[in-house]
C-alpha cells in the first residue's frame, strides 16, 4: 500500500495542499505520472495517519497480521523491506518439532546511496521554487553542522 501524505517539496507545479480536494488531485497526478501499481491510500488533510506513524517523508512500515509493528524504517529501501519480509514470513511459517518461534526486536542503522540526479528531477517537476528552497535548506543544514 502507498500512503500519500503531504508534498515534502512544494513548488509552482505541485504546491502544498490547501484542501482535501487538492490532496486527492495531487495523489491522482502522482499515480498517473509514476504508474504506481499498488493501491494508493490518501491521508487526511491534517496528516492524522502520517503524524501517528512518525512524519518522515519516505518511511516504510510493515504491520504483522493482527496489528503488531514488525518493521519500521525512516527511509524506504525496497530491497531491505523484501529481505525482511522473506525472513519474517519464513520464520513465522516454519515448524520445528518441540519448539515455537518467539518474537524479539532489533534496532539498527543501514546505509543508502541517494540517486541525486533522479531526486533533482523530481524537485524540478514540482517547480523551480522547490529546487531553490532545497538549496537554501542545504545551507541551513550546513550552518547547523557548524554550530
Amino acid at each position, binding site marked *: *500500500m*502507498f*500512503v*500519500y*501524505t*503531504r*508534498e*515534502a517539496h*512544494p513548488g509552482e507545479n505541485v504546491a*502544498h495542499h490547501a484542501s482535501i480536494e487538492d490532496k*486527492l488531485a*495531487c495523489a491522482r497526478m*502522482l499515480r498517473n505520472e509514476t504508474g504506481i501499481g499498488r*493501491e*494508493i*491510500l*490518501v*491521508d*487526511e488533510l*491534517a*496528516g*492524522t*495517519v*502520517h*503524524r*501517528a*506513524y*512518525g*512524519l*518522515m*517523508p*519516505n*518511511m516504510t*512500515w*510493515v*504491520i*504483522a*497480521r493482527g*496489528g*503488531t*509493528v514488525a*518493521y*519500521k524504517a525512516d527511509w*524506504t529501501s525496497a530491497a531491505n523491506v523484501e529481505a525482511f*519480509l522473506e525472513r519474517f514470513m519464513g520464520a513465522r511459517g516454519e515448524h520445528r518439532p518441540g519448539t515455537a518461534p518467539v*518474537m524479539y*526486536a*532489533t534496532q539498527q542503522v543501514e546505509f543508502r546511496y541517494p540517486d541525486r540526479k533522479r*531526486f533533482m528531477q*523530481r524537485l524540478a517537476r*514540482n517547480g523551480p521554487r*522547490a529546487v531553490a*528552497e*532545497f538549496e*537554501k*535548506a542545504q545551507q*541551513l543544514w550546513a*550552518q*547547523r553542522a557548524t*554550530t
Partner: protein
Amino acid sequence: MGETGGGSPAPYNYPRFDDYVASGEDRADEAAFWASPRAGQRAPDLTLTRLGDGGGVRLSDLWRSRPVVLEFGSFT
C-alpha cells in the same frame, strides 16, 4: 525566514521547504518518528481514503488476515 532551529512551527502542509527547515520542524519530525510505536508494539489503527473509489479503509481491516506494507510518500 527564521533562524536555524528557531522560529514558529511550520504548519503540517508547509508551503516552503526552507521555512520548514528553518523552523526546526524537520528535527521535530525525526523525533516524532522515534517516538512513534516501536517494533513489537501495536500499530495505530486509523482510517484512510482509497484513491481508486474514494471509500474509507480502516488499517485493522487490512492487517486482520495478512501483513501489510505501508510506504509513505509524495512526489519527492
